[in-house]
């Protein structure tokens, strides 16, 4: 499948500003800083989550627990996909009991990934609350799920894909909308 890049919707500077804003919003909404923990969804959600955690640590001047979630084993389409997706490690080495978990992903689309992540998280214990932060909300939800913090809302058609690229794995920070070539 070939993809044609249509538009760049966020550049590196805008991504940085969005993360800083979300960091402030999370701290503003949750006075109990000691209870906050950040959990990112592999792969790009985890990279963004680490950046968010660092920003929040700098602002609040406190250590914030950070973890990474691999949702493969919780997917609802394992019986329908052709081959088993590769399973990566989940690394949550703090107790999530009674924590305010900020779950981070790059793009919020159908909501199915978040549904998996909620199930996966709850298998680690009973957090006080789970909040959702995403860099891009592109609409088209298939489940009753919404983001508490969004870097940018981008209306899209279902033919399009939203690609979040991050320096750590893609060489540069940017968000582009691409469309399948006919």
């Amino acid at each position, binding site marked *: 499948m070939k993809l044609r890049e249509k538009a760049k919707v966020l550049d590196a500077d805008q991504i940085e500003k969005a993360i800083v804003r979300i960091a402030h919003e999370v701290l503003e909404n949750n006075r109990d800083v000691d209870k906050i923990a950040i959990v990112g969804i592999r792969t790009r959600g985890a990279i963004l989550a680490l950046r968010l955690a660092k920003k929040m640590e700098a602002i609040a001047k406190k250590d914030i627990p950070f973890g990474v979630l691999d949702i493969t084993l919780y997917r609802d389409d394992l019986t329908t996909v052709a081959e088993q997706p*590769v399973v990566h490690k989940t690394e949550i080495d703090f107790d999530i009991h009674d924590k305010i978990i900020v779950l981070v992903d790059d793009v919020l689309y159908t909501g199915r990934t978040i549904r998996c992540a909620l199930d996966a998280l709850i*298998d680690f214990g009973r957090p006080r609350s789970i909040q959702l932060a995403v860099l891009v909300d592109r609409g088209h939800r298939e489940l009753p799920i919404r983001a508490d913090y969004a870097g940018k809302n981008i209306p899209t058609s279902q033919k399009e894909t939203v690609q979040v690229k991050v320096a750590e794995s893609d060489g540069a920070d940017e968000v582009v909308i691409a469309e399948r070539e006919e």
Partner: protein
Amino acid sequence: MAVLWKRKDLLDLESLSTQEIEMILETTGSFKEISQRPIKKVPTLRGQTVVLFFFEPSTRTRTSFELAAKRMSADIVNIQTSSSSLTKGETLKDTARNIEAMKVNMIIMRHSSSGAPHLLARSVSPSIINAGDGSHEHPTQGLLDIFTIKEHKKKIEGLNVSIIGDIAHSRVARSNIWGLTKLGANVTVCGPATLMPPEIEKLGVKVTYDIKEAIEGADVINMLRIQLERQGQSLFPSIRDYSMSFGLDADKMKIAKKDVLIMHPGPINRGVEITPEIADGPYSVILEQVTNGIAVRMAVLYLVSGVKERGE
């Protein structure tokens, strides 16, 4: 990116490629964490049925497979030979066809005849996982041994691994030899001549009948149990004599490398092939092997469960 897994069955390590073995090891690493959680369960195999079909006694392997399947939310049925229709004269194939007709997804099987799981894989549609067939192979044991070595040594290539004991009757030895040599280890086998299969060097291993040679320079020593139940006649003068020549004790360990790993697939005959002080000593990773066994088996169940059709 790893290669895609395409096998519906896991019958042996002999037929696996290096990439396939590495993929299982990598997947195992991801599954290990699940058994350390407070809630040791993921929903991945929900709605799938796994039959444990054991024709030989087993505690470790059966429990390990059962826990692996349960921690992935599969439903499990245990069939033991003593209480199955095989005692009424039904053939293995017929029993398996009946199990298949009950719409199960996987059959995990241990049998005293080499090749029995291969026969089933040719005759029924569920995934077949070999949990030990005669003196042929015990692939998940081989994989968990290799995974444990890799966790400690960070690599397999170039390591000197010595397998000591009853090589002739050992399916664990064969699975280890296939897996380790494919990944580039130098494997030495050691035991009395009567317990050494003819032409074993054709598998690419070094053979020695002197345990000192096997210990010296080894990065890993894997001690095997004397399988008295598989030996038709007496193949060595006495247990005591065997233990003196081929048992691992503190005295023989003096020439071993300082960072050697001591492994044993269990069950241990304490004081026969290994003394308690070595089995429980600082170099021993015997219980880690057991822990890793569950993760390896979860990885195998996950990979084969995704393959719908048996390719040729």
